[in-house]
């Protein structure tokens, strides 16, 4: 990282008046799972990166900060591998070997058995705070990555020559490109005047971890209940992550239940196939909505991850789509860097936009449609969707295609998602 000083006057200047500007190729705003992973890859590819995050990394690793776990599809697991994070994560991630989808009490079901597929596992479950630990460790090992924690953007100037950011701490950063990775309520997006389209599902996601007597045998279950999908996702040991979608007006009541009553409600939905269950750690409740930015590009600015698109967790694709953005962004920037191109130029950034537009739109529509189709108890719709499940289940080719798509193995894939090196 080059640090240059601009003395305001001739010699004998009072040190306090020397403005320090940190010069970098890339400024990433937001050091979460998406921004952090992207920072690791870009710095590893030889670009100088400044990553600004409001919070201290240590605060993000507590169970209180983020109790969620993420499904990491095989294609995105390769992105974490390319970011140098996977070695640290692999012992704490649980493989998903089988996926069983059921519609309430219906006898129709969809079963993704690893015996049907040529690749296993389908993906992994990783706890978010574990991902944050891996990121913080990796940050420390990258010379070209400069993490400025507990700081945020006061002002971001973007012009034809580059971007200049002034931070709350008074630091100044100049870079060729700013990347907004600051999540659903992205300030970067708002400041750039990029409109957001969104709608609420009037559903909340209740998330918690449970311990159970029996082994989950690395099977993920998704059960469609009238209030919304209820997922049991395998974690390491005899533990599972529960993602329980509830109507928003009922969610606060569920959250307020005592442990025994909550456990009883859980057991009603969960069944007894894993033996006795016991919730561990805090419960979480997130309002569910779909949102997408009207565009992901502006002058020398690009949005990635939830800042650009956030979706229903029905297919466990939120972080996967963010990491697919990361893989495409990293490839576009790495290629441009090797050719000496201006990293913030439209020719470079538009390739990213074209590349991601279709995939992101398709996934937003699919998750929205699935949720509408399954989160109800209307008889004809139930019949239709159950027949649909049964049909997909009986046609191996179709089944395989859906699975490969969810695994992130279909389409014009970035090199990192194909398991190849960037350069």
């Amino acid at each position, binding site marked *: 990282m080059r640090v240059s000083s601009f003395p305001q006057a001739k010699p004998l200047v009072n040190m306090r008046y020397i403005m320090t500007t940190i010069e970098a190729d890339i400024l990433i705003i937001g050091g979460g799972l998406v921004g952090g992973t992207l920072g690791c890859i870009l710095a590893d590819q030889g670009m100088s990166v400044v990553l600004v995050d409001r919070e201290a990394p240590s605060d993000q690793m507590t169970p209180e900060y983020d109790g969620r776990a993420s499904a990491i599809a095989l294609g995105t697991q390769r992105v974490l591998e390319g970011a140098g994070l996977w070695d640290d994560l692999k012992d704490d991630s649980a493989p998903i070997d089988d996926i069983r989808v059921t519609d309430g009490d219906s006898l129709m079901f969809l079963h993704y058995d690893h015996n049907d597929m040529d690749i296993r596992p389908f993906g992994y479950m990783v706890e978010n705070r574990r991902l944050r630990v891996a990121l913080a460790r990796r940050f420390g090992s990258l010379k070209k990555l400069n993490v400025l924690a507990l700081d945020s953007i006061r002002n971001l100037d973007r012009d034809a020559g580059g971007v200049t950011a002034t931070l709350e701490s008074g630091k100044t950063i100049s870079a060729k490109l700013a990347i907004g990775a600051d999540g659903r309520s992205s300030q970067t997006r708002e400041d750039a005047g990029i409109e957001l389209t969104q709608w609420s599902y009037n559903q909340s996601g209740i998330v918690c971890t449970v311990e159970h007597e029996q082994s989950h045998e690395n099977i993920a279950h998704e059960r469609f209940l009238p209030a919304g999908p209820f997922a049991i996702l395998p974690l390491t040991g005899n533990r599972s992550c529960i993602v329980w979608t509830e109507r928003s007006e009922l969610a606060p009541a569920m959250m307020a239940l005592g442990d025994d009553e909550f456990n009883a409600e859980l057991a009603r939905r969960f069944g007894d196939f894993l033996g006795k269950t016991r919730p561990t750690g805090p419960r979480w409740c997130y309002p569910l909505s779909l949102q997408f930015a009207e565009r992901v590009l502006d002058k020398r600015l690009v949005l990635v991850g939830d800042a650009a698109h956030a979706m229903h967790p029905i297919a466990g694709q939120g972080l996967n789509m963010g990491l697919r953005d990361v893989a495409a962004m990293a490839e576009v920037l790495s290629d441009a860097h090797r050719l000496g191109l201006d990293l913030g*130029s439209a020719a470079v950034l538009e*390739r990213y936009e074209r590349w991601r537009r279709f995939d992101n739109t398709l996934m937003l529509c699919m998750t929205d449609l699935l949720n509408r189709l399954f989160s109800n108890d209307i008889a004809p719709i139930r019949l239709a969707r159950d027949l649909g499940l049964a049909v997909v289940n009986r046609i191996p080719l179709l089944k395989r295609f859906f699975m490969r798509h969810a695994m992130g193995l279909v389409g014009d894939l970035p090199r990192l998602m194909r398991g190849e090196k960037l350069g």
Partner: protein
Amino acid sequence: MVITSTASPEEIARFTAIADEWWDDSGKFRPLHMLNPVRMEFVVGALCDHFGRDSTADSPLKGLKLLDVGCGGGLASEPLNRLGADVTAIDAGEETIAVAATHARQSGLDINYRQCMPETLAAEGLSFDAVISLEVVEHVTDVNQFLDALSALVTPEGCLIMGTINRTIKSLAFAKIAAEYILRWVPAGTHDWNKFVRPSELANGLRPHGLDIKSIKGTVYNLANGDWRLGDDTAVNYLAYFSRQQH
């Protein structure tokens, strides 16, 4: 001595009039900006091949003395300088050179911009490891004289990299009619199809100087995703790299 010039006065005037738009990537030069990454892929690849450089290293072109002839706003000069090359860039338009120099300064780059003809540099006895001339030869008055001038500036071990538009039925349809009148990618009248240059004409003009073609690639536009990529179809835009036989 009298330096005879290959630059066409009308062509210089046309580009001078829009000089300050060189770096507006949504303006008149947008197509060139969009084409630039794939052009640079060829140019940087050829340079790394020719000089045995590792394209993944930091500053892979460090120490190479390059000349960009007809540099315009510096769309190729800037990336080459960023990759470590010592770049001299010339253009016939005074306004153009001023715009290019200002932009390079703002970008923190160090490029030696001069408003002159290649013939001037040859007369000064200068030579370069590589001479690069992109989208220029189709605008000069005398192709062979221009190629003579470029050849004279390449060191014996050096190479010459050219990019231009082929003179084919396909290029008439795409580079002239579609680009100027239908898609309006470039202002009408930007190109004269009759001045487009076939690869064989480049090869014939350079052979007397010992420069042989080493590789040639077309730049192909993918209508489905809007990407440009290098391919084997050289019927419209193409890039070629020439060097002298090593004895």
